[in-house]
């Protein structure tokens, strides 16, 4: 694996290139965008973190890339999802089945309910393998044992024949990772993979994901509302608000110099372990629902910097610093933060 430069775009062709991706929710006659013109890239061997509050569209974005959004009511309205240069959006369901689990995999938030309770762990890993190759069931079982060992499950020869209910949450998430990585996908989408786990298990799972990434070069899209997880895991970060990308930067740049008032608010709302202790600063209010997004900048009702321009015009996502793009009228070199 080549070690890429720290800024996105400087490297070779991206594995996943999302352009103007828009998902709309159609309810009756009302059409409301839940993901609005998202464009970003994910590179081989790198992790892209996506942060945002509940309801900002980050899960819909990941399901949309897999074309797993419930249609209707939601649909992909426009944009491209280029996986190694070929667009997934126009593919039929049949063709998508060949892509899912094979070239793009996904880990879900709830390990407790993400495994089919009626089959053994080994069967379910084998199922993923056999869906994309003509492996015999004996060979699939062998491969399942290897995969279980790889994700750090002790005694895999025994565990392979166990049912999900006899495994703990952390173990189940390891199994989910084994299933997701079974066919050595190009991209792994992890939607809040550690949210349901307790902190020590969380650290183990993150370690595992990191080492698997270095081994296989799989590009990872990590979705989380936990900034700590993002800071630890991601190379690049996207901050989403009300369905739009509002800030996009390499992880160091984002945490060192958050430019969007919303990102600043998010960072101010987590307690500092070292240094002076302040009262935590919550971001007042909640994300507006998709059918009721304000005109102009979607964040302006909650923003302390908002002025006339913010209320009237929507700020474009622009590169304000090197590799650091922000959608805010008040951000940029010299702007007060």
């Amino acid at each position, binding site marked *: 694996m080549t070690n890429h430069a720290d800024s996105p775009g400087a490297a070779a062709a991206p594995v996943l290139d999302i352009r103007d991706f828009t998902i709309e929710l159609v309810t009756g006659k009302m059409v409301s965008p839940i993901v609005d013109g998202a464009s970003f890239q994910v590179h081989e061997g790198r992790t892209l973190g996506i942060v945002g509050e509940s309801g900002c569209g980050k899960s819909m974005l990941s399901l949309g890339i*897999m074309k*797993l959004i419930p249609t209707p009511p939601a649909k992909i309205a426009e944009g491209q999802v280029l996986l190694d240069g070929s667009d997934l959006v126009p593919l039929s369901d*049949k063709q998508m*089945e*060949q*892509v*899912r*689990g*094979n070239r793009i*995999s*996904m880990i*879900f*938030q*709830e390990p*407790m*309910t*993400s*495994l*089919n*309770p*009626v*089959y053994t762990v080994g069967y379910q890993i084998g*199922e*993923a393998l056999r*869906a*994309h190759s003509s492996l015999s069931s004996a060979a699939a079982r062998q491969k399942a044992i290897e995969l279980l060992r790889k994700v750090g499950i002790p005694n895999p020869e025994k565990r392979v024949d166990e*049912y*999900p*209910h006899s495994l*703990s*949450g952390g173990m189940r998430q390891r199994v*989910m990772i084994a*299933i*997701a990585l*079974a066919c050595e996908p190009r991209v792994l989408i992890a939607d809040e993979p550690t949210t349901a786990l307790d902190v020590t298990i969380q650290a183990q799972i993150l370690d595992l994901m990191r080492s698997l990434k270095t081994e296989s070069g799989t590009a990872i899209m990590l979705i989380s509302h936990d900034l700590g997880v993002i800071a630890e895991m991601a190379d690049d970060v996207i901050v989403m608000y009300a369905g739009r990308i509002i800030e996009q930067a390499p992880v160091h740049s984002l945490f060192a110099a958050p430019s969007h008032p919303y990102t600043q608010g998010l960072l101010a709302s987590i307690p500092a372990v070292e240094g002076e202790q302040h009262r935590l600063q919550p971001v007042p209010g909640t994300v507006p629902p998709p059918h009721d997004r304000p005109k102009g900048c979607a964040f302006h009702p909650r923003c302390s910097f908002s002025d006339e321009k913010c209320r009237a015009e929507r700020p474009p996502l622009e590169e304000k610093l090197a590799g650091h793009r922000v959608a805010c009228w008040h951000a940029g070199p010299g702007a007060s933060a």
Partner: protein
Amino acid sequence: MTSPISSETAAGFPGRHLLVSLGRDPVSCIALATLSALFLGAVLAHWIAPYDPLAIDMMKVLKAPSLEHLFGTDGQGRDIFSRSLYGLRVTILLGFSAIFVGGTVGTVIGLVAGFYPKADTILMRLMDVILSFPAILFGLAIAAIIGSGTTAVIIALSVSTTPLVARIARGAALMALAHDYVSSGRAIGLNDWALLWRYVLPNCISTIVVFLTLRLGQAILLGASLSFLGLGTQPPAPELGTMAAQGIGFFFFAPHVTLIPSFVIFFLVLSMNILGDSLRDILDPRLRS
């Protein structure tokens, strides 16, 4: 860490647990014993029955139960005990075939309706239409088309069972579909068929089976009613409903001709319902503490 109920119940069929739980309840035990006796009688009718169920003996018409004829004789001197054993066979067969056919068709329709929202409305409204006719009316209509007989009864019972099963199966499928494992199945690239067959069906099957055991008693009762009305099994072939109907004429001086087949039906259906109920208590995760 507490695991959700669904993952525990669905982990394999709790066969042993089932027997232990049934054994704890004396009423279920009696029901199980009665049902086993009736089934054995039906299966072994050929060997147990002391007389030919069709043999007419005009010298022994309408005899009351005695040692010679355990359940007495009917209007043509046929041994009611022998006829009951053979009749039980037909009655049980009627019920089971209806449950099998209606259960299979209903399950398929219900799962498809739950899985494909586009098919849902059409299929389920169709089921509602069928549901709005009483089963007896179906029996009459089908008997009118293809003629009375066992086949007509099986078709009528199957048709009237299908929409009930479809509703249950659809509900269970919707519940299973809401689980994350279906999304993760999709995310590994499984097609609709694999999802329906390996993810949705196995997670609905216990709900459907429990419903079918409860429906079995009703189906048998309905089948007997249709035969009683003369739409089902035709005389002289023994069938419990038909036999009960044949005794109506002499009900006041030889009530046993009608009462005995009726009681056999009664015990059959009662024990099935009791067992179905206990089965539901054991298998339904929502009723389990």
